């Protein structure tokens, strides 16, 4: 490659096939310029490259002379070509390396970058929408979870109050204790029921009559040996515990013509003591309904 061709034929421009005349012309001009340069370089006109081949082998001596003279030029051209191809190799290596490096964005051109940015923005939008959707779902689930918990708490409270009202659990709170003595055994079942009703009327929430928890189904029956409360025979003195507003209960029992008056009329007494803490420990059992079922819900 470094060897300059002696052939004066215009070198086809490497870029284009030799079939194209205009480019050949260009190459011809190039050759001519080349020759001219050499002339300027002070070399003899006759042996110069363009005519060298025409004289060809017929004039070997001048040709050899010319070749000798051209040697520095050869070397220079060869060096130049070497430098250029080395640069090409260098550029190829650099480009391949930078292209295969992980940070491929740094070599991307502007419109590609814009497209990539658009893609990324669209993706971010999509993901943001997805986040919002999921957030909504999460909120909804949390809300429903909360409302579930609230409903459960509500149900729990309801259950507890129902248990208290039905007397299935022990109860405690402010209230009164009532001691009813009846030495002459003149108090009938209805008088004792009056006590309970009076207490209920005054807002008592839990009542224990003797050892019996008073519920909606509690019965008071006169019997020969006293009074049967829920089938349990009780005798005076009767001890009644009631939970409610102590003052109100006290007043209700002591109103004129009320429970206390009845007891006193019967020769006994009714001692009402207001207390901040009354513990009702008796429990009733609630039979599970056999026929009735909740309706509507």
């Amino acid at each position, binding site marked *: 490659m470094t060897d300059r061709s002696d052939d004066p034929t215009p070198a086809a421009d490497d870029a284009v096939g030799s079939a194209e005349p205009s480019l050949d012309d260009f190459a011809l001009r190039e050759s001519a310029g080349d020759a001219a340069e050499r002339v300027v370089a002070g070399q003899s006109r006759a042996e110069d490259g363009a005519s060298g081949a025409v004289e060809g082998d017929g004039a070997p001596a001048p040709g050899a002379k010319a070749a000798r003279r051209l040697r520095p030029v050869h070397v220079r051209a060869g060096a130049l070509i070497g430098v250029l191809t080395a640069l*090409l190799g260098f550029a190829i290596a650099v*480009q391949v390396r930078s292209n295969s490096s992980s940070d491929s964005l740094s070599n991307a051109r502007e419109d590609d970058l814009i497209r990539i940015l658009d893609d990324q923005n669209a993706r971010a939008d999509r993901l943001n929408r997805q986040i919002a959707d999921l957030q909504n779902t999460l909120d909804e689930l949390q809300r429903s979870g909360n409302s579930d918990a609230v409903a459960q708490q509500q149900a729990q409270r309801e259950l507890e109050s129902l248990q208290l009202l039905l007397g299935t659990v022990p109860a405690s709170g402010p209230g009164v204790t009532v001691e009813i003595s009846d030495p002459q055994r003149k108090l009938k079942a209805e008088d004792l029921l009056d006590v309970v009703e009076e207490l209920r009327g005054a807002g008592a929430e839990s009542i224990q009559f003797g050892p019996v928890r008073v519920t909606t189904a509690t019965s008071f029956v006169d019997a020969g040996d006293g009074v049967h409360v829920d089938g349990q025979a009780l005798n005076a003195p009767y001890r009644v515990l009631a939970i409610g507003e102590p003052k109100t209960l006290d007043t209700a029992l002591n109103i004129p013509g009320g429970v206390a008056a009845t007891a006193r009329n019967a020769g006994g007494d009714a001692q009402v003591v207001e207390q901040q803490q009354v513990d009702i420990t008796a429990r009733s059992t609630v039979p599970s309904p056999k026929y009735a079922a909740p309706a509507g819900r």
Partner: protein
Amino acid sequence: MIAGLALVIGLVVGLVLRPTVPHGLEPYLPIAVVAALDAVFGGIRARLDGIFDSKVFVVSFVSNVVVAALIVFLGDKLGVGGQLSTAVVVVLGIRIFGNAAAIRRHVFRA
């Protein structure tokens, strides 16, 4: 021969030094490489045809690179850099193929 040796040396130097491409040159380097490859293939073909000329090679090499880079630069300025570099690569690729075909005919006689 020197050219092939220089190419290998350049490759090795590029691989060893691991230089980073200056940001301003990034769009032009691949185009310049393709243009230079075109010149090299043309040079090989001319050599096989027996019409190789160092000066033509050097000039065409440099001008190829410069013109290709210039076209891409202009395209970038006009806002059609991507398309123009594609055009340049296509044209140069076609010519490389043509030159490669000529070289093949020389080497394999087929």
